[in-house]
């Protein structure tokens, strides 16, 4: 009878909210601006509440972020424009209140936070951590791969020394190990609850955790209607950080981009996650809306030339292409000038900042000159492919590249590839001659980027680039501490080779755009590109 | 003279068509006295139905009364508003139509349809409507009326449906009944029953009647006075006997002449000026050896044992000799069409032999007979000349078709010549050969059909009610043409018809069929004069008889 809760104004709200039982939702468009409830719209769909499960999509990672804790997290830094971002170089405690690393950097010992409890009140112990990390490396699929990136590969590496002490042993020291623990993957799960719901076929309780998160994080999931919405409810006993300001956050899935824009413009929602560049540019000028655009770290939108494709075997052809791209125009029309230009840099690599500008720019004479030196002076035909799921920027980019190539006699035909096929065709089979790619590395070091994108066989080397010098450099550098004297020269050399061989032509560094109702504060950019709702503060 | 019940004065109706405004009836005047029966007779397009619709004011949207008066019981109907007219329809003037099945709402109980009228005209309250409707159904002699109240039209026979239509029309005891071809399409025996019923009821209720029909015989048998119409105008108006005995107008005379009677021969049907130009009937030569022998022919439909299984033809045997014409007569559903289709090899037999020119053609599947050498020797003239011509083909192409497929040795030029020859043979002007069926008149289409049928010099021609869809004057010409062709081409005919009078004109021998079996067989004249079976007798009795006697040729 009191199922409908109709509340107007913020005064009645706080009273009402405290009176309403948890099972009864108190959302309202009128409440979107309130201090208690936030409404966030997203375009994707949440398909699991368990990040370790195979098939869990990117959008679902935010459940791991908001509902679970990790041992460590990253700190916050202020960007030049005043917005906030996570700080890769500043690892902070989360569930671990402190940690020690031995001298050779192979053993890490964590102290679990005193008094931290799971939602059911059970204290968080090192055994829970051990079970959770074991799970991440055992289940296979993406979590295992991501753990491996931090040299966390087998259950033997993890030890619960006592209830509050947890130890990780690495095969060798790696600068990637600690940051990898701050990614959304190594979450700490309430192992007691999970084990109670495990079966012999399903020892890791994937079926249970898929629907029922069991964590210690700042928010609990109070309602999940797959394909429709997810409702977060604050965990008032959260121990690993300041209590979030919002009592409740409703995540609504709205597939049509225009609809999402209408919603934020009409003030019906608190935030719209991951809005297109055009909207970001235009909404920023509107009253009542705040847009935060943060360049995505370690990510470059690029044009890739597959060296299996005969003409691209010749480096000069690749360079000619790199000189024929109308970068400026692409940046204006496809990116709406959101992001960082990645062209027109100096001829010499002077820093190891990554991403950095390539030496190329639009110079048709140079392009033609280069092409004329090759067997392909009369041009050739090549399909130019892109992933349909990122058509908002890829399509105009492809069209402009097509026209640039036409200027030097190369005929490109555009081919849209549905999202489902993209991975197989582009990344696994690696058979697209010329395509647009948007890889970004979670761990923010250039060598990590190069590892995925410039070693033959690795996933994001979708163009079969193979250079022994590059491979050797990357392998040497990947685990090397950034303070190592060899680090800077190695990276510099990698960048030089990458620009010289140019199998992957950088176009621009994209931004992650989020639109908020005016006055909503505390938003922080994260490498995983999902909304961390914990620090959000109402106006 | 009394004031007439209905007095129509100089009524003209125009129709708006794509070819411009067409005057459907022009200055038609008529009157009907209380208790009188007026017959309006005319061929198709004479405007007889339009006249009645105009009186009822139920013309199509395109039709409009342009001048004239319709005085009914002192009221000028052409002036009164639609709402008043609605009260007159059904209560004062009623109408019944041809094709009774279509005239009833297919998804409403028949009793309810009668009740609707009663309620509409305040002859009954909702409560008593059922009872009164049943009374009315009883009045039109529907057996078990109580139960039939809840029947739907599709559950009744055509004759029954017409009774229901009559019940609807007479439910409110109107003063005037207009019956528009009330029996067309019904079998003769049913026709008689329906007409007798109408006469009985109108007499009982002391009503006036206008009977609209193309059938002079029917009109004469039931009407006090006749009015002949042609092309929207009144030709002649006289008491029936006067009109029959001494028709005043040439048109009336031709019409009378063209109507077959028991004693006329086929030439008698032709108008004088045509008769003068026609050769006299050749002497009929004695029939030759048997051409077609049908023995123990059977046809069943549906799976044996299933409830819809039925025998359409049961054990039929007959033969036709060369040069002979055999008539096959029966009412609808007697199996005559099934028989003809089997003989024609359009339908497979269930059992029995069909020996044609010495070969048992029943053994050849119907689907393969088209390429059989005997195909050309066995041809047919169809009932509906319109339906039997491909609407997308010119007359020439239709006539040429059998030549293309079955006379393959003919060259193109020879074929064209043959088509012209055939056209001349059937009296089809050569300039019409390029036309399409919808551009030809009924008679012309019939000629095209006949030309096509005789193109391959067949030995046996089946005539399946070849004139049923034609006006009598055209029928007269076509029958004569068929008779002439028979002699010219030495063909045998199997003439299928429901109309004994017509069959008799062409046939030497007649078979009467009922329920898939032969009831009676014999010499045409004998059967007509001394029918042996009750069934044949009732068939003959049902044919309306116009006043006999020579038509004065004055």
């Amino acid at each position, binding site marked *: 009878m009191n199922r409908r809760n109709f509340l107007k104004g913020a005064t009645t709200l706080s009273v009402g909210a405290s009176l309403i039982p948890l099972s009864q939702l108190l*959302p309202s468009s009128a409440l979107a601006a309130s201090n208690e409830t936030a409404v966030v719209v997203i375009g994707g769909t949440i398909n699991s509440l368990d990040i370790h499960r195979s098939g869990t999509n990117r959008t679902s990672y935010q459940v791991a972020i908001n509902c679970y804790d990790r041992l460590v997290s990253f700190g916050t830094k202020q960007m030049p424009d005043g917005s906030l971002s996570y700080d890769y170089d500043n690892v902070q405690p989360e569930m671990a209140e402190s940690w020690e690393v031995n001298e050779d950097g192979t053993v890490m010992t964590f102290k679990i936070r005193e008094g931290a409890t799971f939602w059911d009140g059970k204290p968080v112990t090192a055994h829970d951590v051990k079970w959770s990390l074991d799970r991440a490396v055992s289940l296979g699929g993406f979590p295992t*791969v991501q753990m491996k990136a931090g040299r966390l590969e087998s259950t033997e590496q993890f030890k619960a020394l006592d209830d509050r002490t947890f130890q990780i042993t690495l095969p060798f020291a790696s600068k990637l190990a600690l940051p990898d623990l701050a990614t959304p993957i190594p979450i700490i799960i309430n192992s007691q609850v999970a084990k109670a719901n495990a079966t012999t076929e399903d020892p890791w309780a994937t079926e249970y955790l898929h629907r029922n998160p069991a964590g210690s994080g700042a928010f609990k999931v109070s309602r999940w209607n797959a394909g429709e919405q997810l409702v977060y409810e604050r965990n008032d006993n959260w121990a690993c950080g300041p209590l979030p300001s919002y009592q409740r956050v409703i995540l609504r899935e709205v597939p049509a981009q225009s609809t999402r824009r209408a919603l934020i413009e009409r003030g019906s929602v608190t935030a719209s996650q991951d809005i297109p560049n055009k909207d970001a540019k235009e909404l920023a000028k509107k009253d009542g809306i705040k847009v935060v655009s943060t360049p995505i770290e370690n990510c470059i939108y690029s044009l890739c030339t597959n060296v299996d494709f005969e003409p691209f075997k010749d480096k000069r052809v690749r360079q000619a292409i790199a000189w024929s791209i109308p970068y400026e125009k692409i940046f204006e029309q496809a990116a709406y000038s959101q992001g960082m230009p990645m062209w027109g840099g100096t001829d010499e690599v002077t820093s190891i900042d990554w991403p950095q500008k390539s030496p190329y720019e639009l110079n048709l004479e140079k392009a033609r000159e280069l092409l004329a030196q090759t067997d392909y002076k009369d041009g050739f035909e090549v399909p130019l492919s892109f992933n349909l799921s990122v058509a908002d920027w890829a399509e105009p980019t492809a069209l402009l590249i097509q026209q640039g190539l036409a200027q030097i006699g190369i005929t490109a035909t555009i081919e849209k590839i549905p999202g489902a096929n993209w991975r197989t065709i582009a990344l696994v089979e690696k058979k697209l001659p010329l395509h647009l790619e948007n890889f970004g590395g979670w761990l923010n070091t250039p060598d990590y980027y190069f590892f995925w994108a410039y070693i033959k066989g690795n996933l994001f080397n979708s163009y079969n680039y193979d250079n022994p010098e590059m491979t050797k450099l990357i392998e040497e550098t990947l685990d090397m501490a950034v303070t190592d004297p060899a680090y800077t020269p190695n990276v510099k050399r990698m960048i030089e080779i990458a620009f010289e061989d140019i199998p992957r032509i950088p176009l621009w560094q994209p931004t992650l755009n989020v639109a908020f109702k005016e006055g909503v504060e505390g938003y922080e950019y994260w490498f995983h590109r999902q909304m961390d709702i914990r620090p959000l503060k109402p106006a | 003279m009394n004031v007439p019940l209905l007095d129509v004065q100089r009524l003209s109706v125009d129709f708006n068509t794509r070819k411009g405004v067409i005057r459907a009836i022009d200055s038609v005047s008529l009157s009907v006295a209380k208790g009188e029966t007026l017959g309006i007779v005319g061929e198709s397009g004479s405007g007889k139905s339009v006249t009645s619709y105009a009186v009822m004011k139920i013309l199509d949207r395109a039709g409009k009364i342009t001048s004239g008066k319709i005085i009914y019981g002192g009221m000028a109907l052409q002036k009164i508003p639609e709402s008043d007219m609605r009260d007159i329809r059904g209560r004062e003037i009623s109408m019944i139509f041809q094709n009774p099945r279509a005239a009833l709402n297919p998804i409403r109980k028949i009793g309810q349809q009668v009740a609707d009228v009663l309620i509409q005209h305040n002859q009954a309250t909702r409560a008593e409507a059922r009872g009164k409707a049943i009374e009315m159904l009883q009045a039109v002699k529907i057996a078990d009326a109580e139960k039939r109240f809840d029947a739907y039209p599709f559950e009744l026979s055509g004759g029954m449906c017409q009774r229901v239509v009559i019940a609807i029309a007479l439910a409110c005891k109107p003063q005037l009944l207009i019956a528009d071809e009330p029996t067309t399409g019904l079998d003769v025996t049913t026709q008689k029953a329906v007409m007798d019923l109408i006469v009985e009821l109108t007499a009982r209720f002391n009503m006036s009647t206008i009977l609209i029909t193309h059938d002079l015989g029917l009109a004469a048998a039931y009407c006090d006075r006749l009015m002949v119409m042609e092309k929207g105008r009144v030709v002649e108006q006289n008491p029936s006997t006067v009109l029959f005995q001494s028709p005043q107008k040439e048109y009336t005379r031709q019409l009378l002449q063209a109507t077959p009677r028991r004693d006329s021969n086929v030439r008698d049907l032709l108008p004088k000026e045509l008769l003068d130009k026609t050769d006299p009937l050749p002497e009929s030569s004695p029939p030759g050896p048997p051409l077609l022998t049908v023995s123990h022919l059977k046809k069943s439909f549906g799976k044996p044992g299933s409830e819809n299984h039925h025998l359409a033809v049961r054990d039929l045997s007959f033969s036709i000799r060369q040069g002979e014409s055999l008539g096959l007569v029966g009412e609808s559903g007697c199996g005559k069409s099934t028989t003809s289709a089997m003989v024609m090899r359009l339908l497979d037999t269930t059992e029995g032999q069909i020996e044609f020119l010495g070969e048992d053609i029943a053994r050849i599947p119907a689907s393969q007979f088209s390429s059989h050498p005997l195909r050309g020797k066995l041809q047919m003239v169809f009932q509906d000349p319109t339906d039997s011509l491909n609407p997308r083909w010119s007359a020439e192409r239709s006539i040429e078709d059998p030549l293309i497929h079955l006379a393959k040795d003919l060259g193109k030029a020879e074929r064209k010549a043959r088509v012209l020859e055939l056209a001349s043979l059937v009296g089809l002007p050569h300039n019409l050969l390029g036309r399409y069926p919808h551009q030809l008149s009924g008679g012309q289409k019939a000629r095209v059909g006949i030309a096509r049928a005789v193109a391959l010099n067949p030995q046996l021609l089946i005539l399946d009610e070849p004139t049923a869809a034609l006006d009598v004057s055209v029928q007269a010409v076509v029958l004569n043409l068929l008779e002439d062709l028979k002699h010219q081409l030495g063909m045998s005919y199997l003439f299928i018809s429901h109309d004994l009078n017509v069959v008799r004109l062409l046939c030497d021998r007649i078979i009467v069929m009922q329920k898939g079996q032969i009831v009676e067989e014999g010499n045409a004249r004998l059967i007509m004069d001394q029918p042996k079976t009750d069934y044949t007798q009732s068939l003959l009795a049902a044919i309306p008889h116009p006043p006999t006697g020579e038509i004065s040729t004055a």
Partner: protein
Amino acid sequence: MALGVKSRRVLARLLQAVPTIFGILVVCFLLTRALPGDPAAYFAGDMADEASIEQVRKNLGLDQPMPMQFVTYVGDLLQGDLGVAISTGQTVAQELAKRLPASLELTLAALLLSLVIAIPLGVLAATRPNSWVDHLCRFLVTAGVSLPTFFTGLALLYVFYYLLGWAPPPMGRLDMMFLAPETVTGFYTIDSLIAGDWALFKASLAQMALPVITLALFTLAPIARMTRAAMLQTLASDYVRTARAAGLSSRRVLIDYAFRNALLPVVTTLGMVFSFVLGANVLVEKVFAWPGIGSFAVEALVVSDYAAVQGFVLSMALLFVSLNLLIDLIYTLIDPRVSEEE
């Protein structure tokens, strides 16, 4: 007796549907298997290696040969197991149970609205053929069917939500301040009425308004056209002439004689119109973030989610079979002749 004939008809219809359903299963199975892309790779995630992709493939049963996969599929189906929709992580049965009512509510409401508008329009046009009323009706309904539904939907949204603010935010079936009513039928409008909650009823109706109008605009044309054509035919029929000649009132002639007969062909077209609406639903659901079966199918199709696509299609087929049955029954109700024919 009549009942016997009718129930036999229904049974015959059901039997007739069996080969169709089997055909659907086969077509659907082949179609989904023909979908490009490797679902195993897709669901293993961006960073997965070969081994983990293989693992996923095995989990999904995709390592089996095709005929085996089909047999397994049909076997599971007979046990009521439709599999798990990988894209949403729910079992397909759960998804369908939740989403089908959402789509059906939309579809049926649109059909209802469409009927309520189109039939009178068709009748009106038929009673005045070639008048300006007729032309206007024809113009309007044709304009409706000439617009892509997603365009109409967006345009309505722009005007009534964005510009005027009359319509609620297009965020699914219910505004966020309301909780879904207890499930009885799964239709929020009906369930809210059962719960006696007027405000909830109004809220769910408000959410439905724009998508329903969008869909209805699209379906006006076939219904109005068919009504007009059928009415023209019945109005020109002999029995209407008989009724007019018997002096029946124009209301009775129009309704009991002409319209009831004209309804028969209209009812038969409803099946086709329903198929139309369900197709258009896919696009409209996307625009209005409607958590229905159509949008589910699109998403599933894009990621080659076999189980979901198959489940979707199967439920559609069953829906159609039962719908056609329903149409048959309605037909039998209004046409006494049906039970007689074979």
